[in-house]
């Protein structure tokens, strides 16, 4: 199996599905000749032409709204938003329209489409306030949408193929900190990773840490450090944050009895709050300690200067401290 990067996995999934299904078309800013600002659509314009790989005007509501129209008319559009930070202009099309089309038409119409966007930041990534945000909570709140955040190349390809075949709108948020930093063996042939299933990426008996996106790797590093002291942390990569894998959440939390939720996004009213609330309601009798959360502080996003960015970002050390606190409880 060839080793490929995360962004190559995204591109391979798009290319393979476009070869297989001519209803799949791609639209977004700079997705054509340039192949996307991160190269996620590299080569597609050359292979499939400007009718299927459309360099859109600079208008996010249009990118999503036109994609909705394409979906209504039987295509399988992929809308790329250049940075997740620029999805708010398309929010109305996503939450008022795409999410509600099947329900409001009593199943007469549907809207199968994928909205892709790079998200996230971190120290040493110079994205600052508007090229770093994790906004998944805004979509995870909305019935009718599915929200996926793969943490590695294998999942990126398998989940994107699943998203492309899903009957409903899927928000597919790719962590740009992982795009080139992570290589992995990925099958060349087709495979699907089902939407809505989390995965235990490290089994452990003492604490469960639920997380997703790039934070998975920071949690894994922290977990290794704790393992040296024989504290075994189970790490669950949620992978999909809407719908959440409730079964896995409850099962793992019940087994370990201690839970930390770690997320890169701002903490308040985030996905981690939902996970914590599920655990607090459904695992009450099994809990051996408070359900803890760690995530972005109460500032708008990651500032530019490294000295400031560090305050926002988690990193293994902060996570380790929190895990030790919970372990000691």
């Amino acid at each position, binding site marked *: 199996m060839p080793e490929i990067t995360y962004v190559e996995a995204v591109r391979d999934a798009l290319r393979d599905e476009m070869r297989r299904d001519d209803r799949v078309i791609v639209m977004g800013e700079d997705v054509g000749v340039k192949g996307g600002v991160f190269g996620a659509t590299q080569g597609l314009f050359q292979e499939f032409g400007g009718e299927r790989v459309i360099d859109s005007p600079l208008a996010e*509501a*249009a990118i999503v709204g*036109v994609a909705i*129209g394409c979906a209504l008319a039987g*295509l399988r559009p992929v809308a790329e938003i250049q940075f997740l930070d620029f999805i708010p202009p398309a929010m109305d099309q996503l939450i*008022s329209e795409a999410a509600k089309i099947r329900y*409001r*038409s009593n199943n007469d*119409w549907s809207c199968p489409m994928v909205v892709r966007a790079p998200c996230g930041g971190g120290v040493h990534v110079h994205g600052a306030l508007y090229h770093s945000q994790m906004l998944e909570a805004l979509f995870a709140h909305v019935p009718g949408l599915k929200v996926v955040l793969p943490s590695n190349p294998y999942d990126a390809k398998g989940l994107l193929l699943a998203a492309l075949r899903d*009957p409903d709108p899927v928000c597919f948020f790719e962590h740009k900190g992982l795009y080139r930093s992570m290589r992995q063996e990925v099958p060349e042939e087709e495979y699907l990773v089902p939407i809505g299933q989390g995965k235990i990426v490290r089994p452990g008996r003492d604490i469960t840490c639920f997380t997703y996106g790039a934070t998975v790797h920071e949690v894994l590093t922290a977990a290794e450090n704790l393992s040296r002291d024989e504290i075994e942390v189970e790490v669950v990569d949620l992978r999909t944050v809407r719908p959440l894998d409730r079964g896995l959440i409850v099962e793992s939390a019940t087994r370990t009895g201690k839970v930390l939720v770690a997320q890169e996004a701002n903490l308040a009213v985030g996905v981690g709050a939902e996970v914590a609330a599920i655990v607090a309601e459904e695992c009450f009798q099994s809990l051996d300690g408070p359900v803890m959360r760690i995530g972005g502080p109460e500032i708008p996003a990651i500032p530019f200067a490294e000295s400031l960015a560090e305050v926002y970002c988690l990193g293994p050390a902060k996570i380790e401290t929190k895990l030790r606190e919970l372990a000691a409880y």
Partner: protein
Amino acid sequence: MALTESAPVGVAGLTRERLRSMYQDMLLGRLLDQRVLVLNRQGRAPFAISGQGHEGAQVGVGYALRRDYDWIIPYYRDITLVLVMGMTPRDQLMAALARAGDPNSGARQMPAHYSSREHNIVTGGSPVATQILHAVGVAQAFKYRGEDKVVVASVGEGGTSEGDWHEGLNWAAIHQLPVIFLVENNAFAISVPQALQMAVEHVSDRAAGYGMPGQSVDGGDVLAVYRAASEAVARARGGGGPTLLEANCVRLQSHSSDDDQRRYRSAEDLDEMLRHDPLERFRVDLESSSILADGEADQMRQECQKVIDAAQAEADQAPAPDPASALDYVYGEA
């Protein structure tokens, strides 16, 4: 009078039969609209929004389309347009009375949120102007598949102030897509007059800025609308790209059953409107050119009322949606 030019053989390339049918559809739309308002006043239909005064625009455009072939993405005033495209009074009264059999949404949405996959009427929500972008996407799909279908999206003049409207027209012009942007300009957005909505006289003045043809027509003159729409449809079908078509209408009723336009419009203004009633104008034209015989309009009216009565009787008896179904269809089966 445009109409009498070539009567009695018909006008605007339309046979006498077709002209009569246009009148009948306008009439059916008007009477159905009135019925819904009555049901609302009786406390039986919780909400009503009227298309009275827009029938000329809607029938003119509808007749320029190929039913069950071309697509429309209507807005809440398009009661008559959706009738032309294949919906029935029964369908609409099911919606007005929130019956399970409402084909638009199974009574999940307010009435006048039209939808029918069978008739290529695309589902719409309440946010104004979002549908403009959907129409562009539908047209993009037509073009991609090499189909010669056309899609019409309608909106009020107030809706043209939304960002989505701009983004949609711009995209359609760049890609020369087969879409017609119909603006039913009734001079008010709820209480806001056109002068507070835009600093131009005609919405169609904006077409040039997008690089597409634009036209304003008298929406009170169904045949003028028909001609303009037919031209736009021919252009779109032939690969000539989008058109901005403005039909100037009158809003004979208040914005909706929750509004009272006498609170913000003068009595003269309201009176003056009546002179532009498209239904009355068309009747007079058809009668004066003997396409409608004396008394025929009344007869048609009675026939329409019968259809509506029967529809209402059916809707009256129809069941409300099953509560258990409320949770269905948030997602499809993978």
